[in-house]
């Protein structure tokens, strides 16, 4: 923090960005900006979360979740009402779900930038890549299978409904352990990539995954999958946590120097990354 902050558009090696229109600046940034990979991943993350919110809350209407206490006819009627939204919305989800990859890569990179072992970055990368399958895609598959044939045996539709929401809410371990891996990395880090309080916030986020566990047990009340504790409070924490790390990652990219610098005390790591790229150029 002692060193001056770097402006985002300030190139490290390539001078004179064009002073022309927005579009030409964007094109220049895309081709030459020294931090293009980082900014690309960051923007993918921002757009992904925007899309995620729109698709889950407004298009498919699966969030906030409907009640697990509904009887079978109500569930079937719910699918009838949301038929097209589910099929089209989850179609878009399948189209864009791959955006998780650069996003998780950026989070893993943040750990690479720390003074901790590479172990953390790779563990986090694999854990969160795995997480998308039970945490999001299985839910989407169950939803479209239910919406595909509205005249299926209602009991089967009800089963698909439970399957969808429980796989979505009830996928806990990957997110919990992932957050804890990130937390430990942040608390041990000496490069000040993230402030320590964000490490503690990760602990709060990990604990929300504990709190959601009763969703597997209760059909109604505060602990059901749409309950005040298991969903609403957790959602507030999740949104806050996500917002915070998006902002902090932006700051990290702004401070990034690929060597020593505003993220202090990193010559060893930064040197390694630098020599890698030099090697690649050669």
């Amino acid at each position, binding site marked *: 923090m002692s060193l001056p902050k770097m402006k985002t558009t300030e190139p490290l090696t390539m001078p004179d960005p064009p002073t022309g229109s927005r579009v030409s600046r964007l094109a220049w940034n895309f081709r030459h900006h*020294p931090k293009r990979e980082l900014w690309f991943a960051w923007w993918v993350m921002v757009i992904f979360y925007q899309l995620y919110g729109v698709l889950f809350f407004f298009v498919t209407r699966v969030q906030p979740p409907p009640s697990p206490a509904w009887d079978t006819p109500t569930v079937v009627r719910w699918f009838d009402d949301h038929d097209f939204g589910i099929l089209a919305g989850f179609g878009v989800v399948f189209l864009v779900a791959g955006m998780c990859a650069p996003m998780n*890569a950026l989070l893993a990179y943040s750990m690479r930038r720390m003074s901790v072992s590479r172990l953390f970055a790779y563990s986090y990368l694999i854990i969160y890549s795995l997480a998308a399958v039970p945490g999001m895609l299985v839910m989407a*598959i169950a939803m479209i299978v239910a919406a595909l044939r509205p005249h299926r045996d209602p009991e089967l539709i009800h089963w698909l409904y439970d399957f969808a929401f429980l796989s979505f809410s009830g996928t806990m371990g990957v997110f919990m352990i992932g957050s804890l891996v990130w937390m430990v990395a942040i608390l041990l880090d000496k490069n000040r990539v993230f402030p320590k309080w964000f490490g503690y916030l990760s602990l709060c986020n990990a604990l929300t995954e504990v709190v959601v566990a009763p969703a597997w047990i209760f059909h109604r009340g505060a602990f059901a999958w749409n309950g005040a504790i298991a969903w609403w409070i957790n959602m507030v924490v999740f949104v806050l946590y996500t917002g915070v790390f998006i902002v902090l990652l932006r700051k990290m990219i702004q401070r990034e120097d690929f060597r020593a610098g505003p993220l202090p005390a990193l010559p060893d790591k930064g040197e390694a990354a630098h020599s890698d790229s030099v090697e690649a150029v050669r």
Partner: protein
Amino acid sequence: MRRTDGELILFWTLPVLAIIWVSAFFLFPGFVHPMSPTMSAEEVAGFYRDETARIRYSMILFNWFGVGLIPVVILLAMQIRRMAHRTPILCYSLIACAGGPPTLFLIANMFWLLGSFRPERAPELTQLLNDLAWLTFTILVPYLIAQSLLLALAIYWDRQDRPVFKPWVAHFNLLIAAALAPAAFTALAYTGPIAWDGLLSFWVKNIAIAVWIIVMGIVLGQTIRQQRAQDRVIA
């Protein structure tokens, strides 16, 4: 002399894998004339009753070799590592993509095998398993799309005198990504090109995957050979 690092061994698993996949593809009775989503529950149940053996053996074969593509994607990720990038982010992204399609494919594979395990169960249930299998199989595209786009981006950004891959490989990957995209919306229709037995969702998607494997296999093979030749000259 270069140490034996096994890179080539993993690479040469690719043609073997392709042969196995193609045989399994033809062995599965539901692929050559893809099963229609319009089939009634009784028809689906009848299909599983009549074709039990071929479904089982082809899917067991797929279960064994479904994950075979992962080493190839990792080989690509390692080539990205050699590109003129400042960060390992695109390499990490490709690694993050590698596990997705096989996982989804194995889920679909499991549903097919479950369907054929007790073909005498209630037709409604067999139809449910069949729907789960086909939809999962058809929508396994998200990571493949991301993988192609990321690879294309990585190649565009590989700005050096002798880039790891030629620019046409990037264009080719964009094309593949476009070809895979419609399959994501397969659940919207029972018939027509979007349906899971349709032109776009089945034929274009699967042919795109096959072409991608063949072309990227050849490109990767050439790149690895050149790289080795270079290493020998330097040594």
